[in-house]
């Protein structure tokens, strides 16, 4: 009876109530999407590299080393010499290593020199490895393998020929030594998608006629001659390392960090990620805080609307009282109303959230490489909803008490 009454009362004020519900839903959706983005960004970040025990590069902060070697963000402070790399490879703790060399680019995409072992050793999202979608891995010196994103955005196919530019933002191209696309990788959702991969020897080859960052004028070694040359790299940017036993990781890390011949840094990728996240976490919390404030604001808004509707509804309440409703029933009715509004808002916000996520997911993935996982609501969300309903009841208490006073004072006769 009370339920039905409250519902019809709400229905009678469809427009006002509808707007309230819309405002609350949008703010709830804002909160939930911030939360979803936050967790998705975290997982897609931490899932980027797995099963690599150490990343070794020139002396740098661990976050910087992680960013340039794995995420291709920023630049290396220095390279490490091939001799030091060989020293590292010969350590007994080491199970496998994959050298990588960065520094050149193609149309804004980073070019990475590495060896074939990269494709079997680099793991992401637990134990998934990079696999070839079309074509094959590099066989020839001038073969290049493209990440899925590069191929898609530039419209390249197997056999397309391309020229690598020197450096990251430069106008000098290695146009004397064009490459040919030999393979395109499957989409991984990691920075590999946006990487152009060549062999280490190729990186060395395109720099044959270069000295200290510039082309030596007039010098052009014929390609046939380059193919005959010893193309062992002189230096690399970083190396991914796997150890035989986890118990020896820190021993190896210390050896690398204290390596006397060259200043190097070894990091545990997960540990560095966590360190980075502690910094990012501050901004995260800020975002979350803002959306909580937005929810609070809409709750206050709901109370305001209820207040303003009270004076319009004094006649309505007088009729309720005339029908035999006690002042407490009036309070109950208003609180029921608040519960209705919040439940409707929650339902609507969830619908809204899924619409927005489905709409934006491809765009976020394409532009930021973050795969927002659209899944059913978690228990945590239920807690939030419960808290929200309780809060809305608490907020509705104020107008309800006012209505109670009105109904006692006015009784059945209203002096408007």
């Amino acid at each position: 009876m009370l339920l039905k009454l409250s519902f019809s009362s709400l229905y009678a004020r469809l427009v006002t109530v509808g707007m309230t519900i819309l405002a609350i839903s949008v703010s709830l959706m804002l909160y939930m999407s911030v939360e979803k983005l936050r967790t998705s960004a975290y997982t897609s970040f931490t899932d980027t590299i797995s099963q690599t025990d150490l990343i070794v590069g020139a002396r740098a902060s661990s976050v910087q080393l992680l960013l340039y070697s794995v995420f291709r963000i920023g630049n290396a402070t220095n390279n490490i010499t091939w001799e030091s790399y060989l020293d590292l490879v010969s350590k007994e703790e080491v199970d496998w290593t994959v050298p990588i060399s960065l520094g050149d680019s193609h149309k804004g995409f980073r070019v990475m020199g590495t060896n074939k072992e990269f494709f079997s050793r680099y793991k992401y999202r637990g134990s998934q490895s990079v696999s070839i979608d079309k074509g094959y891995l590099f066989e020839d010196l001038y073969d290049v393998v493209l990440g899925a994103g590069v191929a898609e955005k530039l419209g390249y196919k197997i056999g397309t020929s391309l020229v690598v530019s020197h450096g990251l933002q430069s106008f000098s191209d290695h146009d004397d030594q064009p490459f040919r696309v030999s393979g395109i990788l499957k989409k991984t959702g990691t920075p590999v998608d946006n990487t152009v991969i060549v062999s280490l020897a190729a990186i060395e080859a395109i720099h044959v006629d270069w000295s200290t960052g510039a082309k030596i004028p007039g010098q052009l070694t014929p390609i046939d001659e380059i193919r005959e040359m010893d193309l062992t790299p002189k230096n690399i940017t970083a190396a991914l390392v796997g150890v035989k036993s986890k118990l020896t990781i820190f021993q190896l890390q210390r050896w690398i960090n204290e390596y006397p011949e060259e200043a190097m840094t070894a990091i545990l990728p997960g540990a560095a990620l966590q360190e980075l996240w502690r910094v990012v976490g501050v901004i995260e919390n800020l975002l979350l805080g803002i959306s909580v404030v937005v929810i609070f604001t809409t709750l206050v808004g709901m109370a305001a609307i209820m207040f303003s509707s009270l004076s319009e509804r004094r006649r309505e309440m007088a009729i309720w009282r005339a029908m035999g409703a006690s002042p407490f029933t009036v309070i109950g009715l208003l609180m029921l109303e608040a519960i209705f509004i919040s439940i409707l808002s929650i339902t609507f916000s969830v619908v809204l959230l899924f619409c927005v996520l489905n709409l934006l997911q491809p765009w976020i993935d394409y532009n930021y490489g973050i795969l927002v996982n659209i899944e059913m609501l978690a228990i945590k969300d239920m807690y939030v909803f419960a808290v929200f309903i309780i809060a809305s009841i608490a907020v509705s208490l104020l107008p309800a008490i006012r209505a109670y006073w009105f109904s006692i004072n006015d009784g059945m006769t209203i002096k408007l």
Partner: protein
Amino acid sequence: MRKNIYYSLLLSALVTVSVAEETRQVDKHEHGVGELNIAVEGNSIDLEFMIPGADIVGFEYKAKSEADVALVNDALIKFDEFNNIFSIPSASNCNLVEADISINQGENHKDEHDDHDEHDDHNEHDDHDEHDDHDEHDDHDEHEDEHDHDDHGEHDDHDEHDEEAHNEFVAHYSFNCGNIKEIDRISFPYFTTFPNSGELEVQFVSEIGSTSFEVEGDEPFIDLKGKI
């Protein structure tokens, strides 16, 4: 005249080369920040603490006076009993297999600190860490003061090195566990055992992956749920 310039150029080049051949690197060292490495594999868990002396005994020079030696020995005894430092859930059924506690009085750093002037000359060097470290030394007036009281007027080179040596407590514990998956948290009475202690920077690795923590006295534990 010209020749002389060439000679001196050549000479200076030679000198630079000979200097450059030495490797000068100093490990980072930060008061109030202890390091802890935890590695888990199979049934084994290894914990390795590296704590600056200041965090444990309040000074970092080589203990010479009786009182200082007593402080160091007392600290080492506390490290011997690992329950003073950390605790592992008993459900995991872990038994200590090996413990190795030592204090690194920094003898191996001596050489690096011998060439004081050299550091100052080579400001252009990239070894920023080194310089940072250096600045830190200067900040520690209180140590020098203490030192003054101890051995008045005896300020020969040697003492200075000890002062710079920055001793470090190194404790390594290996456990074998019956049920290693039960380790969901490790807490650190360390912070109450050594009131001078600052934070602990923890690196953690297991077959699942690696992560890191920053632990401080107000929340003296790490949460390892789902990480082993």
